[in-house]
C-alpha cells in the first residue's frame, strides 16, 4: 500500500492541501479547534522554502497574510469563531482591495467563547456577511477529510483567479476526524496562478475592467508602483468618492463572481431527481443526512440530499433544479437556522422549508434526520 494512502486528520489535510496548492506563507494565532493546522504548517512550510509566523493576534495574522499575498506569495491563516470575528476587518480589506487569501474557520460552538471543543455550524452567515459593506466572498464547506484537502487547494485556486478572499468553513468534527485519504489526488491538482501585470507601467491601471472582471495585479518591484487602499478607489487605485466612479467600481466588484459561476459553484446531490423531501446540509451534518437518505430510500421514502460544497455564493441554480419536484425542503444544520434563511429565499414556490437545528454542541445524528423526514412525510 502506498504511503500516499493513509489516515489523516481533517486539520492536517487542510495544511497539506494548502501546501499542495502552493501556499508558502502562514500566519496564525492559536485557537481551538483549529490549532493543528498551524502546527502542521509550522512543521511543513520550512521544508518547502516557505515561512510560518505565529503572530501576536488574529488580526495581525490575516494582515500578515495579505502582506505576503501582495508580495506574490500564496498565503493562508486558520482560526475558529472568535478569531474569525476578529479577522473580519482585514477580510473586508482583502475583499475591497481584491487581495487573494485563504482563511480557514473550523467552527466551534458560539456565540462568544461558546464551546471551544464542540462542533457547530454557527458561522455560516458570518462567512457571508461578517465584515461591513457590500462585497463578494467565496466560502467552501468540505464534509470529509479528503474534501478538506481538495477544497482547501481549490480555495487557493479560486482566490487567485478571482482575486478574492476564500473561506474554508468546516465544523470541529470534520477538523478532528481522521479518515483514510489517497494523497495521489494531489498529483492531478491543477494550480491557478494570479494574472500579473506584464505590460508597460505607464499604461497600467490596477483596477481597470478586464474581460473576466478580475483586475490585473502588479507585483512590487516590477516597476508599476501601484497604490492599494481600503478606501473606495477608481481604476487607478486611488481613492474616489465620485458617485459614478464608485458605482462603476462597485458594480465590477460585486459582479465579478457572476461572470463564471460554473468555475465556482460545486454541489453534491444524492437522489434529488424524484425526491419529495430534499435535505439540505453541510459538513458533518451532510454526512448524517447522506446516511439517513440512503436508509429512507431503502424504506421506500423519496428523500434526497442537496449538499452545497461551495456555500457562498450559494449555488442557486443547482439548488433550484434539486428542489424542483420537492414538496418539502428540510435544512439540517448545527445552528439556529442560518442556512435555512438562504434556502427559504431560493426555494421554489411549491415546496415548504422546514428547519432541523441543533445548538447543543452535539452533531445531528442520522437517526434524527431520518425521524424528522418520517414525521414530515406522515404530516404531508
Amino acid at each position: 500500500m502506498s504511503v500516499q494512502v493513509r489516515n489523516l486528520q481533517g486539520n492536517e489535510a487542510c495544511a497539506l492541501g494548502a501546501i499542495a496548492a502552493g501556499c508558502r506563507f502562514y500566519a496564525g494565532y492559536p485557537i481551538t479547534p483549529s490549532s493543528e493546522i498551524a502546527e502542521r504548517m509550522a512543521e511543513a512550510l520550512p521544508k518547502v522554502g516557505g515561512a510560518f509566523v505565529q503572530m501576536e493576534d488574529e488580526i495581525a495574522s490575516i494582515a500578515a497574510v495579505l502582506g505576503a499575498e501582495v508580495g506574490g506569495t500564496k498565503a493562508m491563516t486558520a482560526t475558529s469563531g472568535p478569531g474569525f470575528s476578529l479577522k473580519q476587518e482585514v477580510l473586508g480589506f482583502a475583499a475591497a482591495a481584491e487581495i487573494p487569501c485563504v482563511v480557514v474557520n473550523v467552527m466551534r460552538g458560539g456565540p462568544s467563547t461558546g464551546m471551544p471543543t464542540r462542533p457547530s455550524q454557527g458561522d455560516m452567515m458570518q462567512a457571508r456577511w461578517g465584515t461591513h459593506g457590500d462585497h463578494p466572498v467565496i466560502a467552501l464547506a468540505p464534509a470529509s477529510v479528503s474534501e478538506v484537502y481538495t477544497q482547501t487547494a481549490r480555495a487557493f485556486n479560486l482566490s487567485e483567479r478571482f482575486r478574492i478572499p476564500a473561506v474554508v468553513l468546516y465544523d470541529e468534527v470534520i477538523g478532528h476526524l481522521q479518515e483514510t485519504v489517497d494523497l495521489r489526488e494531489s498529483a492531478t491538482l491543477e494550480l491557478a496562478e494570479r494574472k500579473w501585470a506584464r505590460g508597460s507601467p505607464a499604461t497600467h491601471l490596477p483596477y481597470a475592467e478586464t474581460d473576466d472582471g478580475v483586475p490585473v495585479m502588479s507585483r512590487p518591484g516590477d516597476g508599476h508602483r501601484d497604490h492599494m487602499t481600503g478606501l473606495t478607489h477608481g481604476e487607478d487605485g486611488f481613492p474616489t468618492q465620485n458617485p459614478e466612479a464608485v458605482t462603476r467600481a462597485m458594480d465590477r466588484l460585486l459582479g465579478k463572481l457572476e461572470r463564471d459561476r460554473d468555475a465556482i459553484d460545486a454541489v453534491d446531490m444524492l437522489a434529488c431527481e424524484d425526491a419529495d423531501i430534499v435535505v439540505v446540509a453541510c459538513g458533518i451534518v451532510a454526512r448524517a443526512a447522506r446516511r439517513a437518505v440512503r436508509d429512507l430510500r431503502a424504506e421506500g421514502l423519496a428523500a434526497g440530499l442537496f449538499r452545497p460544497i461551495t456555500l457562498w455564493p450559494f449555488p442557486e441554480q443547482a439548488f433550484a433544479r434539486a428542489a424542483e419536484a420537492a414538496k418539502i425542503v428540510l435544512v439540517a444544520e448545527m445552528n439556529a437556522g442560518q442556512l435555512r434563511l438562504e434556502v427559504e429565499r431560493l426555494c421554489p414556490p411549491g415546496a415548504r422549508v422546514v428547519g432541523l437545528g441543533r445548538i447543543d454542541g452535539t452533531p445531528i445524528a442520522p437517526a434524527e434526520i431520518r425521524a424528522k423526514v418520517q414525521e414530515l412525510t406522515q404530516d404531508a
Partner: protein
Amino acid sequence: MLDGRPFDILDYLRRDLMPHFLCPGCGHGIALRALLWAVHETGIAKDRLAVISGIGCAGRLAAYIDANTFHVPHGRALPFATGLKIARPDLAVVVLTGDGDCLAIGGNHLIHACRRNLDLTCVMLNNEVYGMTGGQVSPTTGAGRLTTTTPQGNREPAFDACGLAEAAGAGLVGRELTLHPPTLKNVIKEGLAHPGFSFIEVMSDCTEIFGRKNEMGSSGEMILSQASAMRPTSYGSRGATAPFHPNAFPTGVLARNERPEYGAHLRAASASDDGHD
C-alpha cells in the same frame, strides 16, 4: 539615488495627486520630505520601496509617494508589512503611521514588531491628536491638553513611544523634531540602514486642530516650543531619578539593540530544512 542627482522631492511624489490634503502648518509634510530625502540618500530605488500606512493623517501620506504603496486598515500596517517583508526580503519596507494608528489600535502590533526584529522601518508621526477624525485625544496627547474628547483637559499621561519600543527590543530607536529637517533625515537614514526593526518617532505638529484648541500659536511657534522642551540629555542616561516628562522629549538615535534579524532567521530555517521532506 536617482543617477547621482541631488535630492528633489518631486522625483519621489505622485505629482498628479497634488494638491495634497494636509492642513496649512501641518508638520507631516516636513516629515514626508525627510523620509523621501533619507530614501534618496540611502539609494533605495522607488521600484524597490514599499510604503505601508494605516489610517489617519499620517496614513494618507503613502498615496503621495511614487513607490509601491499600501493603505491598509487602521493599526494594521505593521503586521501587513511583516508579511510583505517576509515574502519579499528584496524590498525596503517602510511603515508610515501616526500616534493613534501605531500606539492605540495598533499598539500590540508595535510591541511584537519590536520584539520580532524583522527588518522594517517604522516612522511614526506624532502630532498628539486624532486629526483626521476631528481632534480627539490620542495616546501621546500631553497631560492637561484640550481635545474634543477631553474638554476639561487630558487626564491620561502621554505615551513614551520610544521607551516602549526600546523595552520591547526594537533594533534601533530614534526620535526627532521637524525643526531640523536634515537631522530628521539623518535619523530616518539610520533607521533605513539598520538591519532589523527600527522605530523612528517624528514629533509633528497639528496646528489647525490641536494647536488652535490649545492656543499654541502658529506652526512655527509650535515647533519652537517643542524644541525648547527638548531635553539635551541622552536617552541612555535617563534613569529612575529623571522620570518621563510627558511634554518633553529627548531626541536623536536613542537606542541600538544588536539582535539577530528575524527574516534572516526564517530564511536560514527554511534553507536548512530544504529537500528533507
